[in-house]
């Protein structure tokens, strides 16, 4: 040991060779040199505009006599351009000095090490840090000046009317005064508690679900009831929101769906379409991977029942008379009158015949073909088209006398649209499961359904949680498109709030508020998905 340590000398303290450093690090080639000059120039520009920046305008720190108060003076001084710019430059110089000192002395503290690794990584890193810091500081200053220091918070229209001409920043009163409008739209005030109740139900369910899908949670037994609860919540909340039929006034009065609006409508639309598009998308994904050849009997019966229902609805009250032209030009005609029974029998025969032909002669995989065509068709058109179809085209295909509520049509459109995307995500998950898993399951005697439910799907769905939640967040934000078919969701309500005479021209405040609401909801979903992913992943793989 001693022989080794004898030869080790304390390290020499190297001198800072500026020329060497500049030649090798900064001006080593033409591009670096160019970039260095660009950076230095940009820094100069930003610093200059920082020093000459206008002082911010205050709205609330004036004393009644119009003089600036002591607090106002302090704010003005701290936020003035020269003060902020010099503070940033001084801090930057201290940091740079610390790093240079540590580098020459070979002594690294945790602070200087962090500074060297993150903010002062060489010449270009240090200059970029300075540039971006000044830009960020002045952006923050502008945002605070508009949204806080120069803003007016009163939501009394009369007060605001007087103060507004002298307010340099935002007028937040439009948000405060219209909170109810943003929350429930034109839903009647006396039934507003019902809307609140529904929101509370959804929130409680969401919180319980978040807790139940926690790893090792005591609520683990309630996962299945919770899934049913979510499904049951949909008709329940619709019922609560709609009210008791027959009541014109009072707390349980009927509220037609065209009065539902605001955040309430956004939540109703997104929860319904997220919860219902999931099973639908799952079926589509499984269907697209189906190996079943020919026509499954169940679907034949389903189609026959649908055809009978549709045709009975379309059947004229007495009897159906058809004029059948026999010869092409100037035709003599034959009148055929069908009884309702014949009418249905004919169509049933038609449906069975088509299925029989497909099943026996084409030997195709009907389920797979149907699912593939559906998915590719829906994914090939924009959501707005689907919504227009649901709104305008759907009534044409329905039997006579059947009318579907506008909201319901839109919800169906959203579900159909989202399910197609979800199906492809789930299919990706299913394809990631090795074939051996399925083989092991059936070799143990599990049926195809059991192996899907117990082995394949739990693994496949877990693999695609991030993608699915991404889709759900997209769907949540896409509900703002329903305004084009006449529904008043949060965004549309916000637009209508702007057009109120006492709040004219306050777009910025309103859109900032709406953006914050959307962001909070979307980010909560994202956080929940990260949690879910982590909790379901414990101990695996």
């Amino acid at each position, binding site marked *: 040991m001693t022989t080794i340590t004898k030869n080790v000398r304390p390290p020499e303290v190297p001198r800072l060779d500026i020329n060497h450093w500049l030649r090798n690090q900064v001006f080593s080639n033409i591009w670096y040199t160019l970039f260095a000059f660009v950076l230095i120039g940009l820094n100069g520009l930003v610093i200059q505009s920082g020093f000459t920046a206008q002082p911010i305008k205050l709205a609330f720190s004036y004393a009644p006599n119009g003089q600036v108060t002591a607090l106002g003076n302090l704010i003005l001084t701290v936020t003035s351009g020269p003060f902020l710019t010099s503070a940033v430059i001084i801090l930057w110089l201290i940091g740079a000095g610390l790093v240079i000192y540590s580098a020459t002395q070979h002594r690294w503290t945790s602070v200087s090490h962090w500074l060297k690794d993150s903010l002062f990584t060489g010449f270009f890193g240090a200059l970029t840090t300075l540039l971006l810091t000044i830009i960020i500081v002045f952006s923050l200053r502008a945002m605070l000046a508009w949204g806080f220091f120069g803003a007016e918070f009163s939501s009394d229209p009369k007060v605001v009317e007087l103060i507004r001409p002298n307010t340099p920043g935002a007028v937040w009163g439009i948000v405060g005064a219209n909170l109810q409008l943003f929350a429930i739209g034109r839903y009647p005030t006396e039934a507003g508690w019902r809307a609140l109740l529904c929101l509370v139900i959804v929130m409680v369910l969401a919180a319980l679900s978040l807790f139940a899908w926690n790893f090792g949670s005591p609520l683990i037994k309630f996962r299945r009831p919770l899934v049913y609860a979510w499904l049951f919540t949909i008709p329940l909340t619709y019922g609560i929101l709609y009210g008791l039929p027959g009541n014109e006034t009072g707390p349980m009065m009927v509220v037609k769906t065209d009065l539902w609006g605001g955040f309430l409508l956004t939540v109703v639309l997104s929860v319904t379409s997220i919860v219902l598009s999931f099973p639908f998308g799952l079926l589509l994904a499984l269907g697209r991977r189906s190996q079943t050849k020919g026509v499954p009997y169940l679907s034949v019966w389903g189609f026959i029942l649908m055809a009978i229902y549709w045709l009975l609805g379309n059947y004229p009250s007495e009897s159906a008379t058809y004029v059948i032209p026999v010869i092409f030009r100037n035709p003599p005609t034959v009148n055929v009158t069908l009884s309702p029974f014949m009418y249905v029998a004919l169509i049933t025969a038609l449906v069975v015949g088509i299925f029989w032909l497909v099943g026996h002669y084409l030997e195709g995989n009907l389920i797979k073909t149907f699912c593939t065509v559906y998915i590719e068709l829906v994914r090939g058109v924009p959501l707005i088209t689907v919504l227009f179809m649901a709104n305008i085209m759907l009534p044409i295909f329905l039997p006579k006398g059947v009318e579907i509520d506008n909201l319901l049509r839109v919800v169906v459109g959203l579900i159909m649209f989202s399910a197609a995307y979800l199906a492809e995500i789930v299919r990706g998950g299913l394809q990631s499961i090795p074939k051996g898993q399925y083989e092991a399951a*059936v*070799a143990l005697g599990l049926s195809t359904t*059991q192996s899907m439910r117990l082995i394949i799907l739990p693994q496949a769905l877990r693999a695609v949680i991030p993608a699915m939640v991404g889709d759900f967040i997209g769907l949540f934000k896409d509900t703002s498109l329903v305004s084009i078919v006449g529904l008043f969701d949060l965004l549309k309500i916000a637009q209508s709030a702007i057009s109120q005479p006492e709040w004219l021209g306050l777009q910025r405040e309103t859109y900032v508020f709406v953006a914050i609401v959307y962001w909070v909801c979307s980010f909560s979903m994202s956080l929940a998905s990260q949690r879910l992913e982590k909790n379901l992943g414990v101990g695996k793989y």
Partner: protein
Amino acid sequence: MSKKELGPDIIVCKDVNKWYGEYHALRGVSTTVREGEVVVIIGPSGSGKSTWIRTLNRLEEHQSGQIIIDGTELNNDVRNIQEIRREVGMVFQQFNLFPHLTVMENITLAPIHVRGWSRERAEEEGIKQLKRVKIPEQAGKYPGQLSGGQQQRVAIARALAMQPKIMLFDEPTSALDPEMIKEVLDAMQQLADDGMTILAVTHEMGFARTVAHRVIFFDQGNIVEENQPLAFFENPKHERSKLFLSQILHH
């Protein structure tokens, strides 16, 4: 080698044929296996030995010929297939444990959902089978936390928990490190000693020599030679089996 008396025929194959498109994978395989018999199937790769063992529980469909397992014929009748799969356990080369379930859940899944046992009874049986393969202490872990040899023993216990009459092994040691092969072979040997009917595709000639009642040599989709292990290894009759044995033994 104290080998017990063998029972009646439990697997009967008559002229079993299988094609993958144009490729003729099985060319008229005919043989019978008796209850309690240990059969080792060897042969070059691509000879159809794995395909044949997988037709016995319908993981692969055979297009012509007859397979009768324990008196039930394997055909397109789903009930027959389910009945046979309940009585035939299978162990795979890649273990194929379910990674999202614990070891105990892996083992109790089929008894609960196929046999309809209660959870308590299934777990009792699970512990029994885990003790049989000597890893009862791993019951609460996930497959990803176990070594390859342990995983394969869990796979054996999982198949045994269904109380099958026949066990199929499809190259159970091929994906294992050399030092883990022994623990799996020991478990298989113990099964054989307990009188289980075993069909194993394997390259472990030592196992074939000491445990098997019969060795079946496959080549080009058919049985070329079958004999008792001593006779087969000492005195192979067919040219192809001579070549195969010389290649694997003198290496």
